[in-house]
């Protein structure tokens, strides 16, 4: 169970690419976001959870993609120019059929070390793996 180093640099271009051909979105249109009172374009929550899923998939593989769970809360907005890094802390390990059910806190923190997305997750660590 090796967790990767995962840091993503955020740009408006990447946000727009993630959104696809969508015009009316505060994740792709800074002016619309300002008119909604959120001060400019913000990264879509699904984009941030995707980073955490990449982090967990790299660590657990099929133990996450088949039976894994994540519940995330977006506590601070992420904007173009920010970078986010994934971190984790294991909170429980429970023996189950086929291995160990691992529960953990995972989060993204920005370049200032502030948590921007916090989540609880669980995955299966198969028997015989580290």
């Amino acid at each position: 169970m090796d967790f990767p180093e995962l840091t993503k640099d955020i740009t408006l271009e990447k946000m727009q690419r993630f959104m696809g051909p969508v015009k009316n979105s505060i994740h792709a249109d800074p002016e619309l976001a300002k008119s909604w009172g959120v001060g400019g374009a913000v990264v879509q929550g699904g984009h941030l959870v995707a980073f955490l899923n990449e982090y967990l998939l790299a660590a657990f593989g099929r133990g996450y993609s088949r039976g894994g769970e994540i519940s995330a809360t977006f506590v601070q907005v992420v904007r173009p120019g920010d970078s986010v890094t994934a971190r984790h802390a294991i909170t429980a390990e429970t023996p189950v059929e086929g291995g160990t059910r691992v529960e953990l806190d995972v989060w993204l923190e920005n370049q200032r070390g502030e948590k921007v997305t916090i989540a609880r997750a669980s995955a299966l660590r198969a028997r015989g793996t580290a």
Partner: protein
Amino acid sequence: MLQDWDAIPIGGETGRIEFEITDALIDEYVAAIELDPRLIEAEVDADGRRVAPLDLVPKHAMRTLFIDYVFDKLGPSMRAKQAYEFVNPAKVGMRVSAVGRISDKYERRGKRYVAFETTYFDQDGTPLLHDRRAVIVLGDNFKLKG
């Protein structure tokens, strides 16, 4: 037309979708998120079909299932929570279907939230993943009084 808070129907349908998982969809998603391609290459099932990235299905479906409804009926909003339960992988060639619904609406710390949920199924009715999300509504029409 925007809805009143009291008129938001818990259990109401917000959208439905059916689409096929294709190699092109996977390639587009992997590039958009800058996903480590080794994770995808590792996820080829025994039948040789590519497995879609975990978020591809909800990402592809969310506008039809939820966002159009949110934009039309709730107005300005931001996602506050997102939860997934991954049951079975989506693979190239699968036809995925889902119906989005409002699962809850609630007030917390002076703000109003609307929650949505769906389960995505393959063409045989096998569940792929459960998707629960909540948005905080920002429009003046949803501001709490007092």
